[in-house]
């Protein structure tokens, strides 16, 4: 028995998991409908796939949500996991699930997949026969991902960097790398049985003034860490920056460089997709305005040429959206994609060049780290501030980089910290901004820049 298989058996012999039948699961994946694989839809697609967000504790409620989404013509169903499960606290999840079922009130903010188990969940997934995307936020997602794939969920979001730096204050990053390594390998192995399992990175990060260079570097690194383990279908992603042009440039550069770096490690055979998140930052409280913002995000996603879009709702600024609001966004987004035609071909060579230079310089610095494996190089680079995510709450993050918007609302780096932004690019970025102001005015500008959509 391989080392991995040994590890799998240990992980799956969990008191909250009922007997995991490896052979049956393998047979299931082998024979599963192609329609369940988002990787299959990406291959066939002639339109951008639309995916909302959402998860409820009970089977019934989750089923009802899915029915609602299907009626609204969804392309990809979400399955958002509750926060106890994210912290591997299956005991609490179990208790809260029982309370939710008994009292018809939601005691969890998502679907406790491990407690429901794969045998039950698979019924729902195969019933709808639509690809499902797993949204969690779990540093140690090993058990969760095994259960997900056994259930027929063939897209797994997250990654050791993107699920840690925005979501956690002090979960050990090195551990996260190892746990995700396991996830990648499991995904890679199952990918050999049928269409590939798709892995997706979480590009929005903190959704707050993250400069495209940082987003792209992290997307590329999580992609490489995944392809290294044998994953054959991967989605890089980012969220609306606030400048249409910066979005388009970011999309162009990330597509080009994903291909380039995949080739560098001899993984040109992997399919790389682009996912765009509707505005992830501070939303307007006016719900009509929120809808304008959402529609505009869809238009920009089309101009970026995304393969999939992940939607928000008009209720973002107030609370967890109702299924009605959620389905409404899906229907509206589909309509918009249908009527938006004659997209112009937009190339901004100068911006693309600057961004490419920034990304390549940081990537080079990461690769030059003396550590023996890629994940250790990445780990060291985060520790040393070569990678620095603005507004990350994690203690390992440097927080020395400062960004601001220029007059056109492009995010620009005005303090690079330890990030090896080449001098020319740094000068370019700073030249776009008015830095003659005093610090208080600049802080006011930053506050304003964060709230541009409000």
């Amino acid at each position, binding site marked *: 028995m391989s080392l991995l298989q040994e590890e799998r058996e240990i992980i799956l012999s969990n008191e909250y998991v009922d007997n995991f039948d490896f052979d049956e699961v393998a047979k299931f994946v082998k024979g599963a409908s192609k329609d369940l694989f988002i990787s299959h839809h990406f291959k066939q697609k002639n339109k951008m796939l639309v995916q909302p967000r959402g998860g409820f504790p009970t089977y019934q409620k989750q089923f009802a949500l899915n029915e609602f989404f299907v009626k609204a013509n969804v392309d990809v169903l979400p399955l958002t996991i509750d926060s106890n499960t994210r912290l591997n606290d299956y005991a609490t999840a179990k208790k809260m699930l029982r309370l939710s079922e008994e009292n018809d009130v939601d005691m969890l903010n998502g679907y406790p997949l491990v407690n429901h188990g794969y045998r039950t969940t698979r019924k729902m997934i195969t019933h709808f026969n639509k690809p499902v995307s797993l949204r969690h936020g779990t540093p140690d997602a090993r058990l969760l991902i095994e259960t997900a794939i056994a259930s027929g969920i063939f897209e797994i979001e997250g990654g050791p960097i993107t699920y840690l730096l*925005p979501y956690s*204050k002090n979960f050990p990053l090195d551990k996260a790398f190892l746990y995700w390594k396991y996830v990648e390998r499991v995904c890679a192995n199952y990918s050999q049985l049928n269409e590939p399992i798709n892995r997706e990175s979480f590009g929005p990060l903190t959704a707050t003034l993250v400069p495209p260079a940082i987003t792209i570097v992290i997307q590329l690194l999580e992609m490489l860490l995944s392809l290294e383990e044998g994953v054959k279908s991967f989605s890089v992603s980012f969220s609306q920056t606030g400048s249409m042009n910066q979005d388009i440039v970011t999309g162009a550069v990330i597509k080009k460089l994903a291909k380039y770096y995949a080739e560098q490690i001899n993984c040109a055979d992997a399919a790389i997709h682009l996912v765009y998140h509707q505005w992830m930052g*501070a939303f307007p409280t006016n719900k009509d305005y929120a809808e304008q913002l959402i529609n505009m995000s869809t238009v920009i996603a089309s101009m970026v040429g995304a393969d999939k879009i992940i939607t928000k709702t008009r209720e973002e600024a107030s609370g967890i959206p109702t299924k009605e609001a959620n389905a409404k966004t899906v229907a509206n987004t589909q309509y918009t994609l249908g009527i938006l035609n004659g997209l112009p071909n937009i190339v901004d060579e100068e911006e693309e060049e600057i961004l490419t230079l920034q990304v390549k310089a940081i990537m080079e610095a990461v690769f030059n780290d003396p550590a023996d494996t890629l994940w250790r190089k990445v780990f060291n680079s985060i520790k040393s501030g070569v990678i620095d995510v603005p507004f990350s*709450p994690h203690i390992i993050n440097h927080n020395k980089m400062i960004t601001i918007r220029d007059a056109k609302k492009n995010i620009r780096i005005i303090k690079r910290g330890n990030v090896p932004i080449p001098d020319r690019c740094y000068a370019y970025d700073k030249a776009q901004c008015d830095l003659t102001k*005093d*610090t*208080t005015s600049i802080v006011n500008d930053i506050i304003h820049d964060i709230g541009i959509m409000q």
Partner: protein
Amino acid sequence: MYIQVRALKNMKVVTGVVGNDIHVVANRLLELSLDARGYEVFNLGVNTYLEEFFDAVVETGADVLMISSLNGEAEGWSREVQLLKAKYKHLDNLIMMIGGNLVVGTGSAEDIIPKYKNYGFDIVCHQVDLNTGLDQLEAFIEERVVNDSDIKESNK
């Protein structure tokens, strides 16, 4: 009695986001803003529990404790402030300030401010812009200095 009030420019501030809240954006802006205004800042960041706040105040000898909360957790924690503060000595002159989104859902400042003042906060900023909040702090400090001089005068 002579109460020492540090010059504004040298005041020490302990700040952070209370509870399990990881929304760090406002917290970062707060640090930048305090820095810019000349305070000496000890930022405990997100995910900070009440004890950690008071411990830090004692360790640093801070003049101001500035708590932030975004996801509605604040009220739960604030009920324990008085009790906890009482356990520490020499915190009578500590300026206690809280800001952010101080309720789950929506609420009006008229209801919220008195409530939090009862919890022991001197300055309460519900959905108030950072710099407006810090202006309030400065006004509060100056007023105190004046009051203190009055006390000094009358004690002469």
